[in-house]
């Protein structure tokens, strides 16, 4: 029999899987202009997309290693060095395609969840 803890764990796992792809899209959407980790997190938080630091910062590096982002170290206003991320040219192209996919998915999902008929 599944106890409450296991139910919660399962729910957290499913939620994590659901958010994984969306977070990638959310992060890319904010990196048309260069941002460093903390400023990006704040921007996302302010717009209601809360994301854990342990997820966000490794995700940035993963997206960079996949070629979607580029980064460099900068020292602005005599503060400590910060790593700034920005979407690469390839990232912008992929992002544009992903937005289209996302919008189509939203329409389909709304129909599915609301049980409505397909709008042609």
């Amino acid at each position, binding site marked *: 029999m599944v106890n409450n803890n296991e139910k919660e764990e399962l729910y957290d796992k499913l939620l994590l899987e659901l958010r994984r792809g969306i977070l990638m899209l959310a992060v890319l959407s904010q990196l048309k202009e260069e941002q*460093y*980790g903390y400023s990006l997190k704040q921007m996302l938080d302010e717009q209601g997309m809360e994301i854990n*630091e*342990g*997820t966000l910062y*490794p995700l940035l590096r993963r997206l960079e290693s996949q070629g979607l982002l580029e980064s460099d170290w900068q020292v602005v206003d005599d503060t400590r*060095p910060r790593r700034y991320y920005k979407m690469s040219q390839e990232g912008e192209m992929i992002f544009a395609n992903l937005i289209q996919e996302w919008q189509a998915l939203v329409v389909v999902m709304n129909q599915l969840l609301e049980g409505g008929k397909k709008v042609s």
Partner: protein
Amino acid sequence: MNANEMIERYVHEVGQHLPRKTRADIVLELRSLLLDTLEERSAGEPTPQIAAALLREFGHPEEMAAQYHQTEYLIGPKLFPTYKTVITITLSIIGGLHLLGLGFVLWQESGANFVSQLFDFIFAFARSVILNAGIVTLIFALIERVGTDSVDLPKKAKMWDPFALPPVKDPNRVDRPELAVGIFFGLLFVFWLNLLATWFGESDLSGDAVWIVQLTAAAFVQMIPWMTASLLAEVVLKGVVLLQGRWQRLTRWLEIATLSFGLYVTYRIYRLDEISTVPIFTTGIKLILGIIILVSVIELTVKLLKLLWGQSFTPPTLFDRIRLAKSG
């Protein structure tokens, strides 16, 4: 401990769980991110309490480090069920052989020194379990690294052709678990064979107690290099087939050659007057060898006939595919 020191300890701890190649860069970035956040939250006056709350949000150092690299497997989920089976079989066989050995020694000594023999058995069994479990794990870890299936899957997935799908009953399809088990037991047998003389053939004449267990006859010991060559040939062939992922005409012919050689070596052992120094063992082994020879002759004949008249090793040609597509 002040806030900065706490941050420093944290990033150092995360760094300990990161690969050396990326460690310095990630640690530098993580420190910068933590200090930015700390500064913002403490309005320029960081306290250890604020730092501790922040670090709890970032998560345990190991958890944080784990997020930075993808999961790596020594033995991946695809091979793991086979690995578990092989380990279970291996350890069961080792347990059985050791119990047999204990029984034989106790019988020879008429039950004397029972406790001492029991301790010897436990230590020898433990040593053998660790050694053999290590060998099995090493072989499977190697297969995991060099096995073509998982490594080339993305490339294969792009290039695959439904018309080239092998038939359901495809005799040339590689049975990876079977080959892996075959390689392991082949190597294990080689290992044991070549240590038999040391394990069962030596005597300690320096002490008071002169104790000799000579199970293998001299004529049998002379056959060990032949058996080793035959087993190693089979192991190498299985390894090549495992890497190629499919039986080819050449490897099938090599299989016939290694099986024939193995049959020849088995027959020569069968013809020996004495295999073991214990006569009843010689009779028992000869009976088993007789059955093995009979089965091997049938197997060899069937394989040879299939190879000469039965099997097709060439994938469908372009013409075949077009014809099939039109008829479909």
